[in-house]
């Protein structure tokens, strides 16, 4: 008993944002139990207040350090990603209600499943420990499987969720198999120790690292492990697709970003070879398949695969500049992907809209401002200056050239060239054709304001990249300090 008492208590100040989200989730849970028909206004306001408090904790209490015996790690990087996760979740809550009502799939469980998914993501970005990474990965994924399946009497939603469940399970199995080999190599579960440890049997480390990478490659939808992604993204309710493409990507990429500073001389070849080959195939395949899609939601899903490829190209350069580029591109893609899927969610509310490509023709007549925002988002995804996508791509290109991965930079240019085909085709359809269908679309003031905010932020963060860079640069340098 004596020794149990003498153990130091964990420093809960560091996990205050996560605790707030957890409490919010449980409050929503118990409110839903107490009141059979909980009003959605109450659920939304409780969630918004909770997330706002968590956001304030992150912004104004910049405590850094480790707690829970080194299992939880808060630094600038995790705070930055958590900030954007919370922000995007709050924006999502401004959009989802009418969509779900239209699809007759409004469940009261949605709110706390969302907060548990967010909680898992927040844990995933803030640990170096393999067990915590495993558990957090499961927490995000299980919430995503359920949220994907929550579309009433829609077969494709269930099918997508099932594929996601199967391949997600496989990915976690592979990642934990790899983690097992890393443990055998070093006798520790801490990634920092494992990767700096020099012992015999180094092929255990290489094997473990490659399996771990493949496990995460399935989660982020890198080719050839992407089979679940188009189906899950297309089948899921569109706000959830937006959520998976933004918060999901931020969460699943974070452990790989945390590995980057610890890539050592003796296994750098394995890292560069695995990551750059996966990245090159992903960029080319994602863009080429997106080119022939007729369904815009599926097209954007393939574009999401292609963007995973661009981000992985930055990860292949295990240097400081690569790290900064990756963080910038991750946040940029989270904003762009979220915005573009959200526009689809708004359009899907009108009668007879099926996201087919030809339905976009003449969108500027029926919904002029939405068409302009969608065009700006597509241009950002393509990487046209002065949008945020351009800065991200330029940074990844610079880091590839400083890491002398010229062939990968060339592949990236070719892939971007291919992607021009479909992004510009949608833009041309929207602005240069006459409308084919009569579109009735009524947006609320909130939705207009939020879409405008997303669009403005894409342009503003691209035109004045120093706003974001000022936060990214110190947190990336901090990751490199051993």
């Amino acid at each position: 008993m004596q020794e149990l008492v003498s153990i130091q208590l964990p420093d809960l100040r560091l996990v205050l944002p996560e605790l707030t989200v957890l409490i919010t989730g449980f409050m929503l849970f118990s409110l839903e139990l107490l009141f059979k028909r909980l009003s959605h206004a109450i659920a939304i306001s409780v969630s918004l207040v909770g997330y706002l408090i968590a956001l304030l904790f992150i912004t104004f209490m910049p405590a850094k350090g480790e707690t829970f015996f080194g299992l939880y790690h808060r630094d600038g990087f995790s705070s930055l990603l958590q900030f954007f996760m919370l922000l995007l979740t709050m924006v999502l809550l401004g959009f989802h209600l009418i969509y779900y009502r239209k699809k007759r799939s409004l469940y009261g469980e949605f709110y706390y499943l969302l907060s548990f998914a967010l909680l898992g993501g927040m844990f995933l970005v803030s640990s170096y420990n393999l067990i915590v990474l495993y558990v957090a990965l499961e927490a995000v994924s299980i919430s995503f499987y359920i949220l994907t399946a929550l579309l009433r009497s829609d077969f494709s939603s269930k099918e997508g969720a099932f594929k996601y469940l199967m391949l997600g399970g496989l990915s976690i199995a592979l990642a934990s198999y790899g983690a097992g080999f890393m443990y055998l190599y070093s006798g520790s579960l801490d990634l920092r120790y494992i990767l700096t440890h020099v012992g015999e049997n180094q092929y255990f480390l290489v094997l473990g690292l490659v399996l771990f990478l493949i496990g995460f490659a399935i989660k982020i939808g890198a080719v050839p492990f992407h089979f679940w992604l188009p189906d899950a993204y297309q089948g899921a309710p569109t706000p959830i697709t937006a959520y998976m493409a933004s918060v999901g990507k931020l969460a699943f990429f974070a452990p790989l970003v945390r590995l980057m500073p610890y890539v050592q001389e003796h296994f750098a070849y394995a890292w560069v070879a695995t990551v750059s080959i996966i990245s090159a195939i992903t960029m080319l395949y994602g863009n080429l398949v997106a080119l022939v899609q007729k369904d815009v939601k599926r097209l954007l899903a393939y574009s999401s695969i292609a963007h995973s490829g661009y981000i992985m190209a930055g990860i292949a350069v295990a240097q400081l500049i690569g790290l900064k580029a990756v963080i910038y591109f991750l946040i940029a893609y989270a904003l762009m992907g979220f915005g573009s899927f959200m526009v689809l969610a708004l359009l899907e509310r009108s009668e007879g809209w099926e996201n087919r490509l030809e339905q976009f023709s003449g969108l500027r007549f029926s919904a002029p401002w939405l068409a302009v925002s969608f065009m700006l988002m597509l241009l950002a995804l393509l990487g046209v200056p002065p949008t945020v996508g351009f800065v991200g791509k330029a940074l990844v290109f610079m880091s590839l050239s400083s890491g002398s991965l010229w062939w990968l930079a060339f592949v990236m240019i070719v892939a971007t060239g291919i992607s021009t085909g479909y992004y510009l085709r949608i833009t041309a359809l929207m602005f240069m054709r006459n409308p084919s269908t009569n579109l009735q679309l009524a947006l609320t003031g909130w939705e207009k304001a939020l879409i405008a905010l997303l669009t403005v932020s894409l342009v503003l963060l691209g035109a004045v990249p120093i706003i974001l860079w000022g936060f990214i640069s110190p947190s990336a340098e901090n990751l490199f300090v051993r």
Partner: protein
Amino acid sequence: MEWLIFGFLSSWAILSVFGVLFLKNPVHAILSFVSLILAVAGMFLHLGAELLAGLQLVIYAVAIVVFYVLVITTVPWEKVKRFEGFYKKELIFGFPVLLLAFVLFAYAVLKGNFARVGMAVENNPKAVGKAIFTTYLFPLEVASVILLTAMLGAILLGRKEE
């Protein structure tokens, strides 16, 4: 003596595995699965991991097997495809993969760097409990959230639509 016990337990385990694979009646297959679990629990006991043996019995032999039996009793067996001899193609492809996995695993067990074997053998329920509620408290708490989410999801998706 140690080798004798190990030989007995491992041949028992292998026999039960073949029972699970080849017995036609599903209830018999489940019974030989229980026997496999008992054999594995015996191996854990023999290695001095009494907590692991107990957990094996409590979790697998009780909870999971009961769950399997529940599933088996609800499946309409007259509709299920019957066993149709060996799957030859699957065997040809599956065998090298399994062999590779086995060799890899065996090599890892023999040569891997296991952290300080033999330290926690004395009184291991106490050691495991202490580790779970101090060092690994954080993942334990996150795991509880996962279980809650998974349970909610199962209820939500299994519920009849109104």
